[in-house]
């Protein structure tokens, strides 16, 4: 870090030796929040929320499908953000953050596609169609796979960081395409029920269940990412003095 940043306290957390213990302290809280929110969300979604007038019970897939799809898009944007910060500011922790996020994003992306297919068969009459929404979401899954494969395949961490950052930034262009695909083109996938520009077109308890599940997905993502980022930091900083101290302390506890 250069001297011009000394005035900003927030940058203190960009230092690996400060962030490592902080991540360890925060992760359990987010994990607890994720469990609590998931229980409440599932209860709202599967017990409290009424049956849908046209779809019947099968609509309840939205309590998993929609939060997963939102999260898969949002995580990719966050990865792109950290990648841009890493490229511009040369902060190595940023790249580690984007790489720690990727597996969770890929899982949510897969869950969204999978639950969508299971819902599509009874509702549309087909597991899969090549409409713009489904195709761009599948492309997102491949972008996640590409990012993970590339960053793991390159030995030199600095080169791996840069290559991954470029995939993250290039692929980020796909996210608004996914989101607006149902608006820009005729798609089989229905339009957004919840958006910033209009009132949600669903019953209140249904909406509540979906939003609580979305917060659960946030908390889960934060918890697993913070846990994943810790060993990654240790590995990268293994030649430094503070990692030696941490290993000694944590090794001594056993």
């Amino acid at each position, binding site marked *: 870090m250069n001297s*011009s940043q000394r005035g900003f306290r927030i940058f203190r957390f960009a230092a690996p030796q400060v962030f490592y213990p902080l991540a360890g302290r925060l992760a359990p809280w987010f994990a607890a929040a994720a469990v609590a929110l998931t229980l409440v969300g599932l209860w709202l979604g599967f017990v409290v929320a*009424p*049956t*849908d*007038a*046209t*779809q019947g019970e099968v*609509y309840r897939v*939205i309590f998993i499908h929609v939060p997963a799809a939102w999260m898969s898009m949002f995580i990719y944007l966050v990865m792109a953000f950290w990648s*841009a910060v890493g*490229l*511009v*500011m*040369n902060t190595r922790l940023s790249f580690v953050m984007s790489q720690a996020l990727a597996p969770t994003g890929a899982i949510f992306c897969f869950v969204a596609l999978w639950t969508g297919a299971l819902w599509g068969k*009874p*509702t*549309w*009459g*087909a597991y899969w*169609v*090549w*409409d*713009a929404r489904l195709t761009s979401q599948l492309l997102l899954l491949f972008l996640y796979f590409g990012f993970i494969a590339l960053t793991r395949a390159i030995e030199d961490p600095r080169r791996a960081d840069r290559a991954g950052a470029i995939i993250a*930034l*290039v692929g*980020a*262009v796909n996210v608004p*395409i996914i989101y607006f695909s149902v608006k*820009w*083109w*005729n*798609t*089989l996938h*229905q*339009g*957004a*029920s919840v958006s910033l520009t209009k009132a949600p*077109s*669903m*019953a209140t308890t*249904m909406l509540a269940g979906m939003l609580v599940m979305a917060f659960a997905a946030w908390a889960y993502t934060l918890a697993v990412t913070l846990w994943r980022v810790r060993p990654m930091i240790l590995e990268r900083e293994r030649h430094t003095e503070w990692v030696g101290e941490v290993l000694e302390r944590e090794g001594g506890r056993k």
Partner: protein
Amino acid sequence: MKARSKRLMLVGGGVALLAAAVALVLSAFQQNLVFFHTPTEVMEGKAPTGKTFRIGGLVEDGSIQREADGLTVRFAITDTAKVIPVSYRGTLPDLFKEGKGAVVQGTLGPDGQFRATEVLAKHDENYMPPEAAHALEQAHKAGMTVSQ
């Protein structure tokens, strides 16, 4: 600081250029990205009528007729401006109903009849309990103007 602003310009400029390129490509392929065409587009000759294509719209109220063989169905698909008659042999998805959205895939015959090989139900973005749907229907029947 100098080098950092330069890198910011590079990254920002690169993403902006890429976004512009993608936007151009997408608008050039606009026609191929639509999953279905509307009946109005078909009537105006904008759909690829020579080969298999898809038409999307609402199943017209009162148009569903089942043939004696129990498998062949005739109905009309409309975007409220134009109507296209469709014939289809096979099973229909559960959500296929009069007044609801559907997408049909097949070919347009010279007689103007669309022969579908696949019928998909298109769900809208509205989710509501049956009581609310019932209330809406009653209100609609009573001639009130209900915004959808």
